[in-house]
């Protein structure tokens, strides 16, 4: 595009008026706007977390200052010791770890079996069961919550961790099954066919060929399962009662309700609960993204 600016000499003398110059300015401005917006978003997103950690290190009563103090004058790590002193956080942590690990293993085993059946095996009623499974994604927890509570009451499992763990050994949730099935479908069938010709049965093919190839999908399931069980509040609230059975989410609530006027301790306890999730997030970032991108298909 030529913007009749006259002779070439004029362009050289006043390059800032040329079309190319304007074009470049617009590109720079656009980039500046985008980076500005991105940075603003990151600040809005992360400042609360900074505030969380900052408050957790304030002296008792020191969190109540106005205007807010962005750079602390002293750091009180003893708040964390106090948290462990006042509440059985080690027990809560142990319970949360137990629930998270055992439920995740159950999800991986039982879920991948179902996913393999849906992806590769041929049997009567498969597509019907697959549709049924997907429809359970839409089922509100409130509908099954009460009879499940009554079921576990009959089994004598109330106020124990079993209701938080055992259901996940029976499928582990439609979302996870769907995620693994989608991945299994992308695997080339040649190796499985070759193994079948060599006389391997379906279970051996599943265990020795499909599962070792499915690392990324299994990692996504581990990540989502970890987050779900570590963060879950409603199920522990319903099923557990005594301090010895509380998970971290529930223990944090009791602790915070006790310390309602002392935010530094509540924030310290919250930080403790957040740290493992952050570590997992940074280690397995891409499995979050990939898993969610797959899950976007589930609702279609």
């Amino acid at each position, binding site marked *: 595009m030529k913007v009749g600016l006259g002779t070439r000499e004029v362009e050289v003398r006043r390059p800032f008026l040329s079309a190319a110059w304007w074009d470049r300015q617009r590109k720079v401005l656009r980039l500046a706007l985008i980076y500005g917006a991105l940075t603003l978003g990151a600040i809005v*997103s992360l400042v609360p977390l900074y505030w969380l950690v900052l408050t957790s290190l304030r002296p008792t009563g020191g969190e109540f200052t106005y205007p807010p103090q962005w750079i602390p004058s002293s750091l009180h790590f003893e708040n964390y010791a106090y948290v462990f002193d006042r509440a059985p956080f080690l027990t809560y942590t142990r319970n949360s770890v137990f629930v998270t690990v055992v439920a995740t293993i159950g999800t991986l085993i039982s879920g991948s079996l179902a996913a393999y059946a849906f992806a590769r095996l041929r049997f009567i009623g498969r597509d019907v069961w697959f549709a049924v499974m997907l429809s359970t994604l839409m089922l*509100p*927890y409130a509908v099954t919550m009460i009879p499940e509570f009554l079921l576990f009451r009959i089994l004598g499992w109330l106020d124990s961790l079993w209701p938080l763990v055992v259901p996940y050994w029976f499928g582990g949730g439609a979302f996870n099954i769907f995620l693994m099935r989608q991945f299994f479908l992308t695997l080339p069938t040649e190796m499985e066919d070759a193994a079948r010709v060599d006389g391997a049965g379906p279970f051996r093919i599943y265990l020795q060929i499909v599962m070792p190839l499915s690392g990324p999908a299994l990692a996504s399931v581990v990540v989502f399962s970890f987050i779900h069980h570590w963060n879950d509040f409603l199920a522990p609230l319903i099923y557990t009662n005594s301090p010895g059975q509380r998970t971290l989410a529930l223990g944090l609530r009791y602790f915070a309700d006790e310390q309602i006027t002392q935010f530094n301790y509540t924030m310290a306890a919250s930080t403790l609960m957040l740290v493992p999730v952050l570590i997992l997030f940074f280690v397995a970032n891409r499995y979050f993204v990939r898993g969610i991108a797959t899950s976007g298909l589930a609702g279609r």
Partner: protein
Amino acid sequence: MAVASPLPGSVRRRRIRWREHAVGYAFLAPWLVGFFAFVAGPMAASALLAFTDYNVILPPRWVGLSNFQALAQDQRFYLSLYNTAYYTFLGVPAQLAVALALALLLNTRVRFADAFRSAYYIPTVAPVVASIYLWVWMFNYDYGLINALVRLIGLAPVQWLWDPQVTKISIIIFSLTRVGTQMIIFLAGLQGVPDELYESAAIDGANGWQRFRSITVPMISPLLFLNLVLGIISSFQVFTVAYIATKGGPVDSTLFYVLYLYHHGFQNFRMGFASAMAWILFAIIMLFKIVQFRMSRYWVYYESGTSGAGPRASR
């Protein structure tokens, strides 16, 4: 379905096919047991309980429709529905707008896109209980960060969690910090839009807004609609934030549906009544599913559109 498995020889066909069915169900067995024990069975039980009076100690007593009749007379039931609808229909569009805006920003292929994406996603994975206490503190009237900001721009501080006019808005604001999942779904959709479309539109002289309106929105409309419906469904089940931050108050302004259901089921132990409430929730959610199914034919653009929805999709 693209399931390639070599057809077995015709002689042994019958036996092998029978075995194949058995193998399939063997793999499916754990899930099937779970489905009947933890989904289908409880659903059937819940459907029966809805017509009973059951306080866990005495055996259930059949009361016909009286749970539903009691609900029809119950002012707090209607209030909880109103609160939930308010939260949903104001909150979900706001959540989608934030998620889409972030996804569009991330899709500009800038440097450090991964770092920015992580920054936006982290609040979503943070344990919800910890986030809630953080925001209770942020919403603190005298010393919270939000009111410090409000004062900074010269406005009067707000009773975020104590003014019944404001509490639902506060909870919506909190929900906006946890839209990372929707954001990533949008981002995946945006990355799937072919560049050629934008290039040819740019050649035709379409400006940024026109390109967004006529290319981006139609191309990601299935995901927009998916996030809308999933958002509505999960918003209707909002519980934890109200249970912890406001306990349903003040003056029932955050008494959401599932919170009210929880009060009946697990504090008053009126299991029948709570089951009746659960089925009304189920009906509402099914209604949204049906609307989704009906409406997606009209304005959602699927590339392989079967219903001839084609290019008029951008309405």
